[in-house]
């Protein structure tokens, strides 16, 4: 037993150290969220001495805090649905057909994934103000399609290209129409790809701040923005800030388990 045990120890030192490095700041945030402000500022301890959930209570009872989460959830969900629905037929076209300008369109879509959001912040503000959509959920959802539709198309195209084209042809010979084939046969085949694409749309819309901040003021203000404004306004309530941070980590941590085997492929834009 000793030989394999030692082999285990030496081999996994690097990943274990790395995970400790990743988890320490998160742990620090977690302990801070469970301390009172007075304890944070006066004593320096590695764990909370007077465990308190008061910081979380503030967030769940103050509308200006919890409405931030609700706003984020609304526009992130809208964005995920719009992006995946628009990307599905497009990805199918790119994976199955050659058509006028296909390569150029595919490249142009990629440039939008790579475009710096800072370039778009001001024109977005003017565009959506001029059509009276400033500070609504659909605005942020639409603005985030800028990078999420290209991303979803690239990921889905990668997964779809892994499905043999013979399946399509057999279905057409069997008398399936295109919509019926797409919904009944093709969609179940790429279900994992759709899951991964949806996950990435969810994630990139959830983590984005600059555009969401520019396009909202009150009614659709996302939690990320509520956090930045509280830092500057109310004299640094560290405990509540830490609790809010922990609550923004949770959604990602919950959904990641379901796509854990496919995340790498998603990050490689479907091309591993």
């Amino acid at each position, binding site marked *: 037993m000793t030989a394999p045990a030692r082999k285990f120890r030496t081999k996994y030192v690097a990943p274990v150290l790395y995970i400790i490095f990743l988890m320490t700041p998160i742990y620090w945030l977690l302990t801070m969220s469970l301390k009172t402000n007075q304890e944070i500022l006066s004593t320096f301890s590695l764990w909370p001495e007077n465990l308190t959930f008061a910081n979380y209570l503030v967030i769940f009872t103050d509308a200006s805090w919890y409405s931030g989460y609700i706003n984020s959830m609304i526009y992130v969900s809208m964005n995920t649905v719009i992006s995946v629905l628009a990307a599905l037929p497009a990805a199918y*076209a790119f994976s199955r057909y*050659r058509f006028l300008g296909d390569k150029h369109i595919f490249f142009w879509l990629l440039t939008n994934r790579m*475009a710096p959001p800072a370039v778009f912040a001001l024109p977005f503000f003017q565009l959506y103000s001029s059509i009276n959509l400033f500070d609504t959920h659909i605005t942020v959802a639409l603005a985030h399609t800028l990078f999420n539709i290209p991303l979803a198309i690239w990921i889905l195209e990668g997964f779809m290209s892994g499905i043999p084209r013979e399946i399509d042809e057999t279905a057409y010979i069997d008398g399936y129409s295109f919509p019926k084939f797409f919904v009944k046969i093709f969609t179940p085949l790429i279900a994992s790809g759709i899951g991964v694409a949806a996950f990435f749309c969810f994630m990139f819309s959830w983590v984005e701040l600059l555009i969401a901040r520019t396009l909202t003021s009150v009614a659709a203000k996302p939690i990320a923005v509520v956090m930045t404004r509280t830092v500057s306004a109310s004299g640094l309530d560290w405990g509540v800030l830490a609790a809010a941070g922990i609550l923004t980590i949770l959604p990602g941590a919950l959904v990641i388990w379901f796509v854990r085997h496919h995340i*790498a492929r998603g990050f490689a*834009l479907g091309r591993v």
Partner: protein
Amino acid sequence: MQKAHDHKALWLVAPALLLVAFTAVIPLMTVVNYSVQDTFGNNQFFWVGAEWYREILRSDRFHAAFLRQIAFSATILAIEIPLGLAIALSMPKKGLGVSVCLVLMALPLLIPWNVVGTIWQIFARVDIGLLGHTLSGLGIDFNYTQNAGAAWVTLIIMDVWHWTSLVVLLCYAGLVAIPPAYYQAARIDGASRWAIFRYIELPKMSRVLLIAVLLRFMDSFMIYTEPFVVTGGGPGNATTFLSVDLVKMAIGQFDLGPAAAMSVIYFLIVILVSWAFYTIMTRDDFEQYRRSQ
């Protein structure tokens, strides 16, 4: 098998195309429009041609932000790529350990960027943060709000913490895609660990590594939220990267003309890199396709 030629497929692309055109082309046209005009307010604009472009390309402020940006991107690439590769190579290959590693490692990638900033803003503070407290306990003067060196170290450690996992995940996906037969053949030949890495794993991972380098380069090239939260571009202008500078100019000072010209230049650089990225990716796609014939 050849893809079928069918221009009707454009209709399938149309919804996505219209949506992206609405969110990308109209704003981009606005930017180009502003970049060649000047205004005295009151919505009166007049043509100035390439004036703003000349001004931006000659301004010390743009050069400084650009150099800082390149230095930042180069530094994080030099750390994250080898580190990510090394960790991917030593990760477990099967069992529960894989899932645990993948989920824990991917966690930083799913945290909103400003929360990443907040975490490190707190963690590196001398009074209440573990890192800052420990460093100052060791007698190191670590104050990232006043010391430019400390601000850079904080931002680089933060980026390594935030994004190395992306490199790990990509390399790991490339590693597990290597057929076991390659390793068996290497064992029969008595190949050393280094030889296996150099002649089997590295060539097989070259594609994912390339994707990792390009993604990391481009995402670090447009980093905004994290430095905005942690340092706000300071102390002074020490961590004012391109995006931070651009937002200051466009929304802080409302210098529409220069900001728009800078946006166009910034965007062109990004398109150039995207083009390299695309060429490499599709070249590989083509080779794979040819091999499968």
